[in-house]
């Protein structure tokens, strides 16, 4: 789930000072509006309205059935300060932050490594691109089943490989300390979209710069640190921002890994060590009958995401150099 989405870039670049062409009149405006109507309706009905409604419900005690009663800021204060009512709220915050801190760098490293390899080979790059992208398009339930098996304490492939290096068997998904690294590793395996974006970034580095570096006597390591990494900085910045936003909202991965089949309830793994924030929202919304509190949680998440993103814009280098 840690794979970011493509940015929406403005489709039209405004050109200041340019006068409107003759013949562009009201009917063209009308056609323009007509053309964007489907997108607009989608936006209002499925994004804007639910978001505004959720904000309203976050100030109520709504439980999905009975009429909602206004409770003011109670949901927010209880969430933050009442550990009887919400015993695992702060745990879910901690789990999600830890996951983000591990998953995002791991995903970027794995994506960049894959992109460099793909960029280096001459033959069969399409095949490898397909293979490396497959984890992204694999159904989440299948991903969960495969990885539960890979992490199996008795028969798992991961333990078998580690065994070759003399590392003892681990009970990955059932040891609280290992759950987040295990989940982050799956996210890094699913880094296909970041990999494609990095690949595009690599293709965008002019060949002349690489040649100049070689002539100046830079080896592969120096070229990587002095040319490729700085030139990819805008790409990296973009991937960090979108990857962080996605990682803070991780849900599907945790859900399928701990659901284990058999209609079992998903309460977040051993000792809540995999209780991702959005899973916590889900449980309160649909299992514990507290949609109002769940809405409040999602707005707290929105605020957190906005703060984190603003900090990233302020403190991370964005320009290529």
């Amino acid at each position, binding site marked *: *789930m840690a794979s*970011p*989405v493509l940015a929406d870039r403005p489709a039209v670049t405004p050109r200041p000072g340019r006068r409107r062409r003759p013949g562009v009149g009201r009917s063209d405006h009308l056609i323009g509006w007509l053309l964007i109507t489907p997108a607009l309706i989608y936006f209002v*009905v*499925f*994004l804007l*309205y*639910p*978001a505004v*409604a*959720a904000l309203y419900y*976050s100030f109520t005690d709504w*439980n*999905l*059935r*009975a009429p909602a009663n206004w409770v003011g800021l109670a949901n927010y204060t209880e969430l933050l300060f009442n550990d*009887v009512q919400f*015993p*695992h709220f702060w745990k879910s915050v901690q789990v999600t932050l830890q996951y983000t801190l591990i998953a995002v760098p791991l995903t970027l490293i794995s994506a960049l490594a894959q992109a460099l390899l793909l960029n280096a080979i001459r033959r069969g790059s399409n095949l490898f691109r397909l293979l490396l992208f497959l984890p992204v398009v694999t159904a989440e339930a299948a991903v969960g089943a495969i990885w*539960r*098996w890979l992490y*199996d*304490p*008795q*028969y798992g492939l991961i333990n078998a490989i580690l065994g070759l290096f003399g590392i003892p*068997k681990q*009970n990955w*998904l*059932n040891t609280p300390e290992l759950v987040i690294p295990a989940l982050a590793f799956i996210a890094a395996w699913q880094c296909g979209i970041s990999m494609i974006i990095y690949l595009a970034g690599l293709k965008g580095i002019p060949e002349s710069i690489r040649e100049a570096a070689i002539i100046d006597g830079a080896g592969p390591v120096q070229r990587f640190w002095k040319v490729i990494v700085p030139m990819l900085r805008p790409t990296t910045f973009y991937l960090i921002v979108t990857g962080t*936003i*996605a990682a803070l*909202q991780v*849900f*599907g991965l945790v859900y399928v890994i701990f659901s284990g089949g*058999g*209609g*079992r*309830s*998903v*309460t977040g793994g*051993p*000792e*809540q060590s995999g209780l991702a924030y*959005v899973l916590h*929202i*889900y*449980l309160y*919304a*649909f*299992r*514990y*009958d507290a949609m109002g509190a*769940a*809405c409040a*949680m*999602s*707005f707290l*998440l*929105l605020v957190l*995401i906005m703060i984190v993103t603003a900090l990233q814009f302020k403190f991370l280098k964005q320009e290529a150099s």
Partner: protein
Amino acid sequence: MIRRVTGAAAVAALLAGLTACGGSEEAAGSTTLTYWMFQDRTPQAAEVVEKIRTDFEKANPGVTVKIVKIPKDDYNTKLGSAVAAGTVPDVGILDQPLVARYALDKTIVEMPAGTVNEADYFEGALNTNRVDGKLYGLPVDHTAVALFYNKKLVPTPPKTWDELKQISDSIHKADPKIAGIVVPKGDGYGAWMFPGVVHGAGGEMVDEQNKKILFDQAPAVEALQLWVDLLPSSPREITDSDMAFANGLAGMMISGPWDVATIKDQFPELDFNVAPLPYKTQPAGNIGGENAVVFAKGKNADLAWKWLKFLTNSDNNTQLAQALGGFPINKAAAERDAASFGEQQQGFLEQLKVAHARPALPDWIKINDEYIAPAIEAALSGKMTSQQALTEAADKTRALLGWNS
């Protein structure tokens, strides 16, 4: 997947889509009863349901029963949305732990006195519909967990806790690669099984009438300690492996009838059977299954109860329960048709005679998941003693409910 909107927006969008479904329509000149149930498990199950439906229509001229089948995973969400939108069915399945919630906010109606003869039904199953002493629905089928045992490793199943510990020890001693029993975990599922063990020590989880939390008392502590004591002979690194019991890596496990079919299908060589749970002072177990309720905003309440009586009468209930993957709640049906259940199912039939309903508290799912499950986990991982863990959970529950004892 929508990634840039908040979780709630996604969730609300989902709801907006769902409320479009549901509702009921009335054909002219006849009465239509809308019934919601879970999606059929097999095509054969669909035939059974269809036959019961047509039989009911034949017996009640002018009545049409419209059955809406919804995937189990989406059911509660859809039902909640329908209630919010006022488009509920007349009658439908309701998860056992939801009955108390729906009853207390008057989403469902009380069963009129004299609708059924209560003695016809198993007490545990009927009690899953009881809130504050009143019945708010009828069970359609019921199910429970019981003890699966590998006949090669466990020739005679244990009856008591002492025998259980002893057998588990000897299995693991004989072969350290094999665990005695798959000990349940401290998650929502393990916490659901736990009361069955507590009742086996003569205890109760909660006394709803006198507003008392009892799961920090001796029977519950002993029940949790039993699980803790089983761990040395049942190491997690063995039992956490996928299907450890079916793979022959564990001598016993606690699970439900749904695993019988899976194991028989995927591990035909495994020689296993099912016995009632071992107990300390009295045989006991937990209960699950499907209840059916009549909605306050639905129509034709009389007809709805008639339909539920029809589903649960001794003629239809066995077939229906088998189609739903559970067991009949009608005593006469269960007794008469016991032989139509397979060898392993007999253990469950036996177990269900002593089943206890879970506490009828609207917050029970949350108490189960958020307090009891972590307490079980804390004791099993050795971070707390059983007593400490359950005391803490009980105190939190008291604070949540505002109860003093």
